[in-house]
């Protein structure tokens, strides 16, 4: 079994988008390209409005990922938990697909007797430990998110601490939206470690726009750009997880 690279987008936001495409549609687009979209909604003291909650859940559902709505204080724990669980979920999906090929169309983890499940999970756990992971973190820096950014930064350092304890390789990239000139601005290029995330979030352009949809679209393109660049140079041998690679 070859292990490839899992690709995830982690969207951190605190409310509703109000500009551009429907973010759920963009998340669905990402999923089609093998990228999982996870969403974390960050609260202040207050509760999130119903529209915001619905949108967050819709994006994650369309992107095949997980969503969590938490207070800023719990962010560190949530970010690493969501990322890991989404990873397990993706791997489990892949293993389930394998199972179906072997055992027939109806077989999945749930249909196996409990004792057999353990053996499957051992494979999933093993993969989760060794698989290479690319996480693109997409941070909403509009309006009310500003006060939460120090906490977000802490959570990202914590995330890299968790993931770098694994045996598999990791790469992180951080994009923020809205950007100064375009929808999205690159803050940190692909890097294996975020502990050195010294870049303070720049002076942010304030404006009423929250272009979550366009930001997601550009995030997908960011994965693509890297891949095409790579194949151009001739390093295209790094396999991405597809059905065939397992």
């Amino acid at each position: 079994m070859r292990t490839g690279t899992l690709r995830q987008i982690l969207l951190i936001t605190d409310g509703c988008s109000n500009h551009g495409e429907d973010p759920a549609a963009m998340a669905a687009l990402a999923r089609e390209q093998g990228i999982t979209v996870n969403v974390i909604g960050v609260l202040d003291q207050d509760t999130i409005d119903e529209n915001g909650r619905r949108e967050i859940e819709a994006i994650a559902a369309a992107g095949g990922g997980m969503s969590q709505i938490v207070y800023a204080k719990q962010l560190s724990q949530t970010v690493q938990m969501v990322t890991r669980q989404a990873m397990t979920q993706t791997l489990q999906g892949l293993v389930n697909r394998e199972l179906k090929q072997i055992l027939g169309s109806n077989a999945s983890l749930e249909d196996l007797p409990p004792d057999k499940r353990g053996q499957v999970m051992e494979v999933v756990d093993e993969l989760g430990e060794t698989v290479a992971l690319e996480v693109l973190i997409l941070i909403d820096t509009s309006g009310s998110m500003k006060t939460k950014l120090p906490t977000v930064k802490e959570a990202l350092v914590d995330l890299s601490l968790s993931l770098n304890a694994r045996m598999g390789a990791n790469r992180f990239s951080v994009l923020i939206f809205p950007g100064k000139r375009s929808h999205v601005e690159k803050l940190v290029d692909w890097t294996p470690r975020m502990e050195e995330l010294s870049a303070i979030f720049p002076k942010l352009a304030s404006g009423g726009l929250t272009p979550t949809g366009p930001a997601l679209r550009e995030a997908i393109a960011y994965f693509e750009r890297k891949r095409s660049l790579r194949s151009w140079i001739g390093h295209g041998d790094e396999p991405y997880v597809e059905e065939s690679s397992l």
Partner: protein
Amino acid sequence: MAMSHTWKSHLCSLPPGTIITGKWHGHSYRLLRRLGSGANGVVYLAENGRNRVAVKLSDDYASLASEMNILRRFSKVQGAALGPSLLEADDWPSPFARGTIPFYVMEYIEGEPFAVFVRRHGKEWAPVLLVQLLSVLERLHEEGWVFGDLKPDNVMVTGPPPSVRLLDVGGTTLQGRAVKEFTELYDRGYWGLGSRKAEPSYDLFAAAMVMIVSCSLGPIEKKGNGRAQLVALIEADRFLSRYKEVLQKALDGRYAKAAEMRRDLLAASAHRPTTHNVRRQTAPSRRPSRRTNRRRKARGVVETVLIAALLLGLYGFYIYRQLSM
């Protein structure tokens, strides 16, 4: 995960008397009360005939299956149990869920959580229980595992006589991998004092934190420099400061094995608190005080006199026997 929150809250509030029947083995369990709930499941006290057991239900097949793997491994380890022993695994075709709900049945460990026990019975129990805990951890580490989510709630004190048992193996990880599950306060990564790689020193950090938290009052939250804050906490408490060196060494990850920490903890406990509150218990050869030197000399003299008296007595006895024969 595609699970609704209502379903989860439903799982957490099953009324007492609910009967859970497994679809594979057909055994039934009657729920008595909820024992606790965590990120990936809820545990109920239940009875099966006359036996009391703990039943863990979850909406997550995967994490439940992982946990069972670990429990199964531990039941194969010779000697005392490292966690609760696994009795059965099954699925419950529940009336309110779309599919079935996976569950497993394990031994019910009755007792008080570490911190509750220490608060009720006195701080002097903390090092005693910690020494026991370190023996358990030592065995776990020898088997190639790290417990991971070590915290007062996961350390049960059963008895009498009081003895510690580990609960909730959800965080238990093979050494060399990334710790699966942890609680911020007991996680050295959170305090900026190390990685989340599963190695024995990860558990020993948490063990030191268990003692610190159980012996200090009030909530602890990280502010600024983690290490300085923890050291200040130890120094603020007269009882804890007696164990300062051991605790500090564990916090810094300078113990490679649980047995080493256990030995130092025992040594620190053996020292009676005298007029000198804080005593160095490192090798006395480093800077022996004059007083201990003098005492040692006096003891030498007494020993010599005793031996001489014994020899004289024996000789006298010998002479007496010779004469009387």
